[in-house]
């Protein structure tokens, strides 16, 4: 894409961009993930859902190794994530992540937040980084806020800036960890709209979310987790209309009430 070197080799539609085999993780005695197998292809949109404490966030945080898994293997574009790897930063630069609590840098303006990544670690010069930051802010529809500080923005605006900040790195994959859970209800839509547009542009997306409308509209596949396991995964159509497992039915009953 454009002017930067990309670190992850381009995948064909066939090979998975992310693949997990037998991944398990423990916090002390508590098993947070057990024996997860999952493959995600390029341009695929995955929604991970499930009751709280089911391991969804842990799973998505393992994909850029903000959390370490203890068993099994995780490959991102053929590069295995493990504790002795030297170039985790190189992999992370290609995986964007959006957090529940935004995590914008409060001492930097919106524009500086977006320029930081490309300018500091991708080696893009300032004027180019600024150009790209403005373009991404336009994409999330808040270019007019560029010179403000994060705390001057609403929650929804902050989260859109966070998305723009990730996009400025021109990632191959975007991870969303409950991006709308900390928002006031009237701001959820603006963030979801941004994510829907991103999905339309062909981005590979993995979203942990409770927004079932979004899942139905955007997801190629819905992964349902409970107690650290993947209980079932299916197309939205099948998942909502024809859930296979008892746990899925209970969950859907509660969330769609």
């Amino acid at each position: 894409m454009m002017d930067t070197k990309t670190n992850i080799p381009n995948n064909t539609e066939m090979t998975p961009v992310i693949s997990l085999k037998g991944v398990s993780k423990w916090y002390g005695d508590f098993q947070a993930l057990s024996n997860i197998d999952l493959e995600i292809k390029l341009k695929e949109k995955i929604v991970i859902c499930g009751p709280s404490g089911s391991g969804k966030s842990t799973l998505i945080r393992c994909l850029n190794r903000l959390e370490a898994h203890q068993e099994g293997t995780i490959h991102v574009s053929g590069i295995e994530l493990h504790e002795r790897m030297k170039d985790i930063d190189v992999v992370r630069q290609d995986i964007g992540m959006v957090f529940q609590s935004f995590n914008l840098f409060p001492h930097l303006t919106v524009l500086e937040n977006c320029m930081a990544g490309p300018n500091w670690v991708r080696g893009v010069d300032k004027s180019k980084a600024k150009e790209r930051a403005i373009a991404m802010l336009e994409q999330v529809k808040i270019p007019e806020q560029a010179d403000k500080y994060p705390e001057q923005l609403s929650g929804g605006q902050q989260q859109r800036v966070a998305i723009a900040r990730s996009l400025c790195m021109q990632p191959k994959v975007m991870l969303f960890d409950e991006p709308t859970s900390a928002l006031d209800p009237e701001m959820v839509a603006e963030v979801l709209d941004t994510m829907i547009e991103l999905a339309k542009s062909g981005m590979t997306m993995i979203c942990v979310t409770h927004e079932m409308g979004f899942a139905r509209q955007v997801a190629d596949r819905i992964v349902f987790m409970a107690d650290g396991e993947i209980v079932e995964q299916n197309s939205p159509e099948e998942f909502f209309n024809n859930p296979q497992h008892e746990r899925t039915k209970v969950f859907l009953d509660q969330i769609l009430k």
Partner: protein
Amino acid sequence: MFVDTVIEDKALHKPAFLIGLSLTVLAIFFALNFTNSLFGEFLRPVIGDPTESGFFGRFAVSLVLTIIFVLNLFAISFFKLKVQVAIVWLELFLLFLAFAYSFDLKMSFIQSRIPLMITRGLFTTIYISAISIVLATVIAIIGAIAKLSNNGFAYAISSFYTSLFRGLPLLLQLFLIYKGLPQLGFMVDAVPAAITALSLCYGAYMTEIFRAGIQSIPRGQWEASRALGFKFNLILRKIILPQAVPIIIPPTGNQFIAMLKDSSLASVLGVWELMYLARTLGQRDFRHMEMLLTAAMIYWALTIVLEVIQARIEEKYKQKS
């Protein structure tokens, strides 16, 4: 601080409080007995010779003082907050001057010695403090990062350092460095010894301040930076430290002020700084209080300068965010 939006009646405007306050103050003044002071002298027309006035004189003096004191408070209570603060400051300062005046100071003596106190004493004090402040800050940054690192050696060395230098009295450190190093073959002059001791001691305190400041930055800032592929040094320099600085400034300002005054300990090594001159200049003529009070005022003025600088910096960071 958080100020509630509900206004309570002023305590000073409640009769019960006023009476209670008056009785308490009266009891205190009576116990302290100001009969033989200036106040007794003022009341001579009423009570006669203060030393002979006995119980009646003591009570009369206390009563007059109490009335002045309580009326003063009552009057001040009607002003706005800022005016109140200014009046109380002024009154306390006048009391302090009265305290100083009561020593029967010889101003000409002060005037003749003050040039030396400033050119030599004040200069040396500032010189020692300024260098120590810079060195202590550098030590604190390195110490804090070492203390937070996963490197066993770095953590061990930095935690040993903070434990040792926070654990020993500064005066003892001063002697250990000044008397100890020459025995190992390193000759140190008094001024470098004082600077070394101050830097190491305050570096240890400030290491803890800096560490706490860095740790107070939410974990999410590290995670977001890591997720963007930033390396440790970059995160610390560009994301964490800029956010930690406003948190670190108030306690660090405190340390600077404390250090400025602790530089007076260098006087025990014979360094000609403010405290040393204050002790020695008045000795020959038995004019101790003149010199000690002069030094006191200079130290106070210096710390006020530091306080103002600290307030300015805090204000600057407040505007930025």
